[in-house]
């Protein structure tokens, strides 16, 4: 769309004088801009309290011209696509007007209705059904309810009845829907790239010498990822029993080796650790990113429990607001939520852990020498921990060293927390026998491959050619294997290096089972027949070890029948179950407790148990029971040597280890802390960037132990200055069209010895730019205090701290807004900033529910991402260690809405219940509404982003209850009006009013911490009404008189009062000014 400013720019370039009248009003002088500052000047202004109280980015502090440009123009580069002149423009407009008219000259189309031949029970055409299932992410089950619209899965939500997640979701879990429909998934069985059938594959398998009857399986190897499926473990054991020489290897790039080794060190055997944040008053996290979905399988539960202790409504004298201390080597989501955060190097975390442990009386902790971090912080922390014995909790990061894990366990023992705030269980995940860590399992495999001992290798769902550590020559060793079979969702790097590739069925397409982090076991229930010629891991293993004719469903039922004490032969009569019978009773490390009520062992009773588990999504009481872990005397390895600059590896917050690289939703989801999309970067602190003189979006070279990689830098406020954080998962060479070639492959620097960091690196700036697509500058609301926070003390002295001074309101009769009344319902939303952890599950939930398209990196750079709900990130305080606030911004659904008044075609209008309805068919795309929206929540379809005409699988994914928008149409958050209407119709049919809590918008349903509450504000008993009455509640830009329906509850942080004075001691204005004068 051409805009006036383009016109002006092109004229100015031609040196042409604008005639009076044409383009008048565009000739204003540029607005006064504040002078550009250096970072140091900005810091002094901050300290003096003269800078912004809350800020979004370093560029804002320094008044960067580009930043100001973005601020002044809402669609900063919307004009940049246009290259024509005025005449051209008018011609095109005339033509498009004529064509637009012509499209109206068609008759209504003809449609077919195709009813069933025999209609299945429970199916009503057009009405959605929900199925309980489990989506494995990194091997661990994420309990889900999947929605099926006429047989098409269209949404993944949380399972509220599941004891582990209680209804929360993670971004990965929800985005698996797009992965299933991904048109770039591999679609055919292939031998050297040529299409083969499953029967041909089975024939070829039967010719393998390793699999002949009587063979001992010499040379047969399996490589799987994290393994929690009881049935798969049973099948693998069967296979190994049948072929005693065969071996199983287990390896994933994001493994929990450190947890296993840490418990081994502390208790003498590998255990799983379960934190009980609900009981912890004081939390110390040692690089433990428990609030991030990519950093450990416990996320859903931990986020829920932690946030419950942060809600002011839940606090009482017995249960005070919890306080979190964190020492971290990067900028994690958990660090952003911590009350008292200390950035430090990766290796310093261990030194700190040793020192703290020694002071808490842990024998053998070492801990001599000077400790990293602020001494006051350490002292306050120790005081708090000592004062809360049994109610404190030390969390070790899954990506820290085993020593840190062991020290955390020892500290929890010393503080009496074991059994209270932390419990232990047998590991949920299974490892090959005799192996303590996955790293060793991979090294064994590679050694054997190099020695020529492996002749038939089957790789299940992993991509080691891409993701193996750089010092493990996996690809080279793989070439020495006679027959290589790859089973996976994509024809990826490993598939290209294998002889056979078998497409893997997605979790929504095949039967299976897996366990959540707490051990709860659930069935993976398919919602749709496989879209392509694909097979599940269960079927693959059956093809290798038998019984070959069994389907995944039969295998699963055979296993569970045996497990629950029934005769498998009676359950699956068509299958030769001798293989199952001959096997020893399945014995994964933590057995599922038999269902107590099942006295008789009849097939009918099994059906009942099976149906119940299917319906619920889990087997009752299947969580891993807590075990008593007896601590051992600590024998720690020597402390690590710190380097001047260390690298820290993390799974990427959105593409994880690379498996979601082709997922457009996740690629475009702003990474919660950095707000980058579509790329990874070397994340560094301000100090480091000043020392080495590089800035954001400039290429730097990182050299780790002789291996160098060039990638763009990103300067992140609060990042420790001794480390550079890099995320894995980018730089893919073979995947789908969305992911190939994006970002930089950090596996090229990652070694098996130090998989998560601590390696000394050198940094060399390269000084050439690499533009990143970052969203932290988009949709700003300029300089006002929009996110609000106070410390607990401030809150206790003034509960109404968030309420602004009453703005001078003109008398009501003066308003030009029509005075609407809302006699029936008045929908409203309340967002508790105290429980929002910034995980972005809501953004993805909204995207999935409302058919929001993906626009691509270039369009994001132009500020055109389409997310209806965004999460603004604000900083408060000094940029070396600022306080971080996350604020989700949906549409405010103003009662006096500025957008509605300016629409020339009535495309956005007020509903009787107070929603600002958007009528796509009326919209002609003037974008006046967006210009007039003070909250910047409206999104415009600059192109036909939702063009699925030649991507039929993506068309099938769309939610049929929401219109798919076309080009030239404005759209925005509707409060999920389709869900409101569905609930209202249901209530009307039952002759009642809508109950409180009956409507859950997609964002609120997705939220793992229940930060979003929705309801009727006319109903004074509703939760949303009560939250709106809360002292902390405030509205955004209330002074504009828009009367928003979305309200916020200001954040209350809980820093240690003793530390507040010493750290952020107030500096008087005069001091700063004197200093400023001295400088210049």
């Amino acid at each position: 769309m051409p805009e006036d400013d383009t016109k002006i720019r092109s004229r100015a370039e031609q040196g042409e004088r604008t005639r009076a009248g044409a383009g008048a009003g565009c000739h204003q002088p540029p607005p006064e801009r504040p002078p550009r500052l250096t970072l140091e000047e900005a810091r002094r202004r901050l300290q003096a309290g003269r800078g912004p109280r809350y800020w979004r980015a370093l560029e804002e502090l320094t008044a960067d011209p580009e930043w100001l440009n973005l601020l002044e123009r809402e669609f900063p580069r919307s004009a940049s696509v246009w290259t024509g002149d005025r005449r051209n423009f008018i011609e095109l407009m005339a033509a498009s007007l004529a064509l637009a008219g012509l499209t109206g000259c068609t008759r209504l189309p003809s449609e077919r209705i195709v009813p069933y031949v025999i209609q299945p029970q429970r199916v009503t055409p057009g009405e959605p059904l929900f199925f309980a299932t489990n989506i494995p992410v990194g091997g661990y089950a994420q309990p889900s309810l999947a929605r099926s619209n006429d047989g098409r899965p269209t949404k993944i939500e949380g399972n509220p009845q599941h004891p582990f997640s209680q209804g929360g979701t993670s971004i990965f879990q929800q985005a698996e829907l797009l992965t299933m429909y991904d048109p770039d998934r591999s679609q055919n069985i292939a031998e050297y790239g040529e299409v083969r059938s499953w029967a041909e594959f089975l024939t070829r398998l039967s010719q393998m010498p390793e699999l002949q009857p009587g063979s001992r399986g010499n040379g047969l190897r399996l490589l799987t990822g994290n393994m929690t499926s009881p049935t798969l473990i049973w099948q693998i054991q069967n296979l190994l029993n049948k072929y005693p020489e065969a071996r199983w290897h287990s390896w994933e790039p994001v493994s929990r080796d450190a947890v296993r080794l840490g418990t081994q060190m502390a208790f003498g055997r590998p255990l799983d650790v379960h934190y009980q944040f609900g009981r912890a008053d004081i939390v110390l996290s040692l690089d433990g990113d428990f609030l991030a979905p990519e950093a450990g399988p416990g996320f859903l539960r931990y986020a829920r429990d932690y946030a419950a202790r942060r809600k002011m409504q839940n606090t009482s004298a017995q249960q005070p607001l919890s306080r979190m201390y964190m020492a971290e080597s990067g900028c994690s989501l958990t660090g952003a939520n911590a009350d008292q955060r200390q950035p430090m190097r990766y290796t310093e975390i261990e030194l700190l852990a040793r020192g703290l442990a020694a002071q808490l009386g842990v024998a053998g902790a070492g801990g001599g020498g000077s400790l990293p971090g602020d001494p006051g912080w350490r002292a306050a922390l120790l005081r708090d921990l000592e004062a809360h014995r049994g109610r404190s909790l030390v969390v070790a990061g899954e990506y820290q060293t085993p020593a840190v894990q062991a020290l955390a366990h020892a500290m929890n023992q010393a503080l009496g927390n074991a059994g209270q705030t932390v419990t232990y269980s047998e590991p949920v995940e299974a490892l090959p026998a005799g192996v303590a860590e996955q790293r060793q399992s991979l090294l064994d495999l590679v050694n054997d491959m190099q020695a020529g001992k492996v002749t038939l290798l089957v790789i299940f769902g992993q991509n080691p050619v891409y993701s193996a550590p750089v010092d493990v020559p996996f690809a080279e060793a793989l070439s020495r294997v006679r027959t290589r079979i790859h089973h996976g969702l994509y024809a990826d790097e490993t598939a290209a290096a294998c002889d056979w590739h078998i497409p893997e069925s997605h979790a929504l397409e095949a039967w299976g089972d897996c366990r959540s982090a707490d051990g709860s076991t659930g069935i993976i229930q398919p919602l749709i027949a496989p879209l392509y010629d694909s097979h599940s891991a269960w079927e693959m293993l059956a093809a290798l070890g038998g019984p070959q004719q069994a389907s995944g469903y039969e295998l699963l039922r055979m296993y569970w029948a045996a497990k629950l004490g029934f005769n498998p032969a009676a359950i699956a009569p068509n299958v030769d179950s001798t293989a199952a019978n001959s096997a020893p009773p399945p014995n994964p490390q933590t057995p599922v407790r038999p269902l107590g009520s099942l006295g008789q062992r009849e097939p009918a009773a099994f059906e009942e148990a099976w149906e119940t588990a299917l319906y619920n999504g889990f087997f009752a009481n299947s969580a891993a029971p807590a075990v008593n872990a007896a601590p051992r005397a600590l024998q720690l390895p020597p402390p690590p040597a710190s380097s001047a600059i260390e690298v820290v590896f993390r799974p990427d917050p959105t593409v994880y280890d690379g498996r979601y690289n082709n997922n457009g939703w996740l690629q475009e989801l702003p990474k919660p802390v950095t707000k980058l999309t579509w790329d990874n970067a070397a994340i560094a602190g301000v100090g480091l960037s000043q020392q080495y003189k590089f800035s954001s979006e400039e290429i730097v070279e990182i050299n780790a132990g002789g291996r160098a990689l060039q990638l763009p830098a990103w300067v992140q406020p609060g990042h420790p200055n001794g480390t550079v954080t890099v995320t894995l998962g980018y730089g893919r060479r073979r995947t789908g069209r969305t992911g190939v070639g994006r970002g930089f492959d950090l596996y090229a620097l990652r070694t098996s010895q130090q998989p998560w960091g601590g390696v000394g690196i050198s940094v060399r700036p390269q000084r050439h730019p690499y533009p990143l697509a970052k969203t932290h500058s988009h949709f700003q609301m300029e300089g006002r205090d929009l996110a609000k926070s106070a410390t607990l003390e401030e809150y206790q002295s003034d509960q109404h701290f968030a309420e602004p001074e009453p703005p001078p309101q003109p008398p009501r009769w003066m308003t030009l807004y029509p005075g609407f009344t809302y006699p029936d319902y008045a929908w409203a939303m309340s967002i508790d900033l105290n429980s929002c952890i910034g995980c972005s599950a809501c953004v993805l939930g909204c995207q999935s529910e409302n058919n929001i398209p993906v626009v691509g990196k270039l369009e994001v750079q132009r500020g055109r991402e389409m997310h209806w709900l965004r999460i603004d990130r604000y900083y408060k305080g000094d940029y070396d260690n600022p306080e971080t606030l996350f604020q989700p911004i949906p549409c405010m659904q103003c009662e006096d809405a500025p957008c509605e008044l300016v629409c020339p075609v009535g495309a956005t209008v007020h509903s009787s219940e107070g929603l600002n309805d958007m009528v796509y068919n009326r919209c002609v795309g003037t974008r006046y509404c967006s210009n007039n929206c003070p909250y910047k929540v409206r999104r415009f379809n600059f192109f036909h982003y939702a063009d699925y005409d030649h991507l039929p699988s993506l068309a099938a994914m769309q939610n049929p209850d929401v219109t798919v928008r076309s080009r030239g149409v404005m759209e925005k958050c509707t409060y999920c009006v389709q869900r409101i209407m569905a609930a209202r119709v249901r209530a009307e049919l039952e002759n009642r009013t809508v109950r409180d809590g009956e409507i859950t918008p997609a964002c609120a349903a997705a939220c793992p911490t229940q930060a979003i509450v929705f309801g009727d504000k006319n109903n004074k008993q509703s939760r949303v009404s009560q939250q709106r009455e809360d002292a902390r509640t405030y509205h955004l830009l209330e002074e504009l008189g828009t009367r928003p329906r979305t309200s916020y509850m200001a954040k209350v942080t809980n820093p240690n009062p003793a530390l507040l004075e010493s750290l952020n001691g107030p500096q008087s204005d005069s001091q700063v000014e004197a200093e400023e004068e001295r400088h210049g």
Partner: protein
Amino acid sequence: MPQVFGRYSNFWSRSTVAGLVLGFCLFVAAAYRIQDSAYYSRQYEVRHQPVPFSHAHHVGGLGIDCRYCHTSVETAAFAGLPPTKTCMNCHVEIWNRSPMLEPVRASFRTGRPLRWMRVNYLPDFVYFRHDIHIAKGVGCQTCHGHVDRMALMEQAKPLTMRWCLDCHRAPFNYLRPRAQVFNTEYIRPPNQVRLGKQLMKRYHVLDPRTLTSCSTCHR
């Protein structure tokens, strides 16, 4: 130099201008009429169906209730089209050799569904629900006309937005007692407006402001 155009040309230039204005108005008016016509809305048009199913025979003649085939009309958005099995409930016994019913039998034999042509078409951006209309006392006839007299199914009403709004603005003109919703012989009583207003209260029909809010039908 002599004038190129004589005085007569004034007439032509004036009539051209007038003609353009008039022509434009006529064009708009014609476009509007076409848009509003039965030709455009495909009202009264008989679609070619795989089987010439007669509602007149089954409903008017045999007296089969609407809900025998349209099973989900009271509980779902879509009234439901009968699966082949429903046809075969009777036609396995009667007319089971009729050549006209061969497609039905073939469907049941082969498991391939019948592909009917949709008669009452609403665009995809309209989210219409049958269940709520039935519950509020809108008779089948009100929108579908005298189906019991249609030998071949046709769209009886224009189904334009203006036509929808007619009722959403003043439902009392159309509502009937719930017991009469499926009655094909129902006759509008003389005191319809009074009855309609009573029914609106009794069935808790929402006020016209809510019924005409855009998001009631468009999302």
